[in-house]
């Protein structure tokens, strides 16, 4: 079922790319409509899976990726509608398409392990997914900032100059996305720590090696904290040292590449604590 939103995202990407190069407003509107249709289809898919499983499918890495893509699509649509700026779509959509391809090819719904109960677990996963979606936006905004910055510095006002919003606007959007992402990342990590403490206290915990592996030594947890450190530094640098512009743009790209690393390869191959 995840194939339907995937197809819509792919078509929307083509429309965004066409809009970006040719700047035809009608094509831009079509692109937005296609993306809204994709997000609605995705909402439907997640809703169906929720009804089928009796809970929101957020446990396995595959479902989590699908949820992340859905959140990112919604977050992007929100920024597009509030800023009336479509130029970023062409950078966000490929991410949606590539990541959505993973759940589209692995359509199974994982059984939920008995330890994964309670509101804390829900807060943990949804906060982190939302944080990652914000960081994805920040990364894309950062990349566009660097592209525009380079054109202006090189005094060659071309492709991106004609299509992107101003440097200050991009810088501000980047900062805002990072602040929101950082807050949710912090909440998500704290919820995870508290949840792990509770899970250990459960009688069934002793039998579950995954609960035992919930420590700093686990790659997934370690990389998440590394991520938190990177974004905390970025916020600190922006507030205290006066970093901004290109430096924060690069940092948000670095931060998000760590997020992606944690999200796909670490989840599938390395972690011992998060392979539910």
């Amino acid at each position: 079922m995840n194939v339907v939103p995937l197809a819509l995202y792919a078509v929307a990407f083509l429309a965004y790319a066409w809009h970006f190069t040719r700047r035809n407003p009608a094509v831009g509107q079509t692109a937005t409509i296609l993306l809204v249709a994709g997000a609605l289809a995705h909402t439907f898919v997640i809703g169906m899976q929720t009804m089928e499983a009796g809970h929101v499918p957020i446990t396995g890495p595959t479902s989590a990726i699908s949820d992340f893509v859905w959140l990112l699509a919604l977050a992007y649509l929100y920024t597009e509608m509030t800023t009336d700026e479509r130029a970023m779509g062409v950078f966000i959509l490929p991410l949606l398409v590539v990541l959505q391809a993973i759940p589209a090819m692995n359509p199974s719904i994982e059984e939920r392990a008995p330890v994964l109960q309670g509101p804390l677990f829900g807060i943990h996963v949804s906060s982190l997914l939302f944080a990652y979606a914000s960081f994805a936006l920040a990364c894309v905004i950062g990349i566009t900032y660097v592209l525009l910055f380079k054109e202006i510095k090189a005094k060659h006002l071309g492709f991106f100059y004609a299509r992107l919003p101003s440097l200050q606007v991009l810088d501000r959007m980047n900062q805002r996305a990072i602040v929101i992402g950082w807050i949710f990342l912090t909440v998500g990590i704290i919820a995870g720590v508290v949840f792990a403490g509770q899970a250990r206290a459960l009688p069934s915990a002793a039998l579950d090696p995954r609960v035992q592996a919930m420590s700093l030594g686990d790659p997934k947890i370690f990389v998440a904290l590394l991520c938190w450190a990177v974004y905390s530094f970025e916020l600190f640098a922006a507030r205290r040292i006066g970093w901004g512009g290109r430096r924060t743009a690069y940092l948000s790209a670095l931060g998000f590449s760590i997020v992606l690393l944690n999200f796909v390869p670490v989840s599938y191959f390395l972690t011992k604590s998060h392979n539910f």
Partner: protein
Amino acid sequence: MHILVVGLSHRTAPVDLRECVDFKGRVEAALGALASRGSTHEAVVLSTCNRAEVYAASDDVGTARADLAAFMSDFHGVDPANLSPHLYDLADLDSARHLFRVAAGLDSLVVGEPQILGQVKEAHALATGAQTVGPVLNRLFHSSFAAGKRVRTETGLAAGAVSVSFAAVALARKIFGDLKRRTVLVIGAGEMGKLTAQHMKSQGVQQVTIVSRTMAHAARTAELIGGASAAPWEEMDAALGASDIVITATGAGTTILTKSHLEAVMRPRRNRPLFIIDIAMPRDVEPAAGEIEQVFLYNIDDLQATVRENLARRASEVLSAEAIVTEEVGKFVAWLRSRVAIPTVVALRQKFEIIRRAELERLDFKLSALPPDARPEARACVDEITRLIIEKLLLTPTEQLKGLGDHDRVAAYSEALTRLFGLTSSTDAEPEPGTQRPERVEGRVEPFRAKSRPSNRG
């Protein structure tokens, strides 16, 4: 009905002649004078700095053409012998194409300049106010607005600044976004500095400060600009720290701002960008200062280079803009051609209506057999039914006829209808040599069409 344009522009006439035939402020008077000459049914006068044109709709192109040329010299009091070599005249399809190209900015001195579409709209509004616009020119001008708008949104013809001062403002906007809360510092109180500061002020920046080695000069220039302030040379560093945009325009001949100086200025600014426009020649700012992370340094050559790039980019968009114009001209011509069928359609309707009325009259006698109180209702009912039958019978042939794009086929179909139904109303006018029959009749039967429209819907 034919469309005609007679006029001159920067392409055909020198500036002194263009000044002589300027309609500025006298457009209404010109429209009144045109209407009283009687050679045209409809007229619109388009007058800008670079062109003076009269658009008209007329039955007789030859007469109207000569009369419009005569009108141009009469109205402005210019010798026709001096004027006529510079006048151009275009008819029908060519005139439509011309207007669409004008509205799109393709015929402008600076290709793609934005004002012309507004000027075309204003010309149309003035003529509408003077009631010299009829259905043909109204449609023509509205189509030209559509063409102009499409070219602006779908091509890059109007994109990019094409003057140095606008290029500087566009760059400032690309760095800072909104300029409203920005502060501009002008170093040097000369003419160039003053002009640039005025331009920035007109773009809505919050504050303009002028610094000069001679405080009196700075104060006087600030006063001339209005709303600007002056600061002594010694306070330049403080002013630099507070500014977003710096324009250097001294005649010093030596470097005013070095890289190390600017590095010191930038440190307390943290990450706030500084846009420096060095319009002095020789330059006031050390070129290496552009290497500082948040310093964007442009000199006059850089700005001129971006202007050249923009002009080249506009030139490369001309082809796609012309394609849009061609498409819109095609749509307009299809509409114009569909009007050729109108006399036949009107004659056909008249014929049917005459038959219907005759039959209703005959029926009236039979209806008198009914009780008196039932008669009006029965009469209304029969009237309604017969009217609807005629409407439905005529709907398809009318649409088919109007949908034909090809002039010859419309003529052939009209001819066939005229013969088959024995239509006479379009042949009772006097034939005139050199004009096509349907068009000649059109002006006369136009009111019928307007009247028959509501019944089309019923």
